[in-house]
């Protein structure tokens, strides 16, 4: 069975991507996936951002689907605003949102995530 394609897109003007990558790898491991199987791509320019539909750094996509719906946020080289499940504003997504997205992707691939 195949594994989900996991991507992390970042912009260097925002310092949150190392933490986002570390937390993503923790969630990959917790979901039984290879924590190193992340495609990390830098978004360097407005043209890159437009091509990637990049609404801020970091952006995590699983099989092309954002772990947090960006809604109507504009394409921009910026730091992305996330909300923790307890309401706090954060520069990285809530790990629970990442885990839920990974589990949903695993189900799409016909795999059962660990309990």
């Amino acid at each position: 069975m195949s594994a989900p394609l996991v991507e992390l897109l970042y912009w260097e003007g925002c310092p949150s991507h190392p933490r986002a990558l570390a937390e993503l790898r923790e969630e990959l491991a917790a979901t039984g996936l290879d924590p190193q199987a992340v495609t990390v791509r830098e978004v360097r320019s407005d043209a890159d951002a437009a091509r990637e539909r990049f609404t801020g750094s970091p952006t995590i996509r699983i099989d092309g689907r954002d772990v947090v719906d960006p809604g109507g946020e504009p394409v921009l080289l910026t730091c992305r605003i996330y909300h923790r499940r307890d309401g706090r504003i954060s520069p990285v997504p809530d790990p629970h949102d990442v885990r839920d997205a990974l589990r949903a992707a695993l189900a799409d691939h016909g795999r059962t995530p660990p309990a």
Partner: protein
Amino acid sequence: MTLALGSPAPAFVLPDTSGALHAAGGAPATVVVFTCNHCPYALAWHERIADVARDYAAQGVVMFAINSNDAERYPRDSYAAMKERVAREPQDWPMPYLHDATQEVARAYDAKTTPDVFVLDADGLLAYRGAPDADSDDPGRHAAWLRAALDDVLAGRPVATPLTEPVGCSIKWRG
């Protein structure tokens, strides 16, 4: 060029969201915070910084929040957006929110990020520069580094930890 500890902080005269002009000077301690509307770090730290403004007002501490970002590329940081934010959340603004339209003040301070915090002593000399505390995600840290710097300045002591690394979104320069 980086503003050196103990050196005179650059003077400024900037408008707040009502158009009133503000300048630093005359307070036993002054806090200058470069911030903005669109950055998650600035937003996450905002309430803690505002709490400092409230908690130290009785001791004469004056705080200024300054937005210097390029509003053409980042419209959420426009002067109009600043006004809307303060009008929407007046209780969250115990300090004036100033607009640095030319970015000259940010350049003079060599501000790097939002937030980037500067504490000036009674003589207008730089006594602290850096982050409000160690973690934007942890409200329990209460802007401890900023509070410690203010306590030292108000007590007439050298600031024990005068430099920390500012953490946040890069200032959005024009051009």
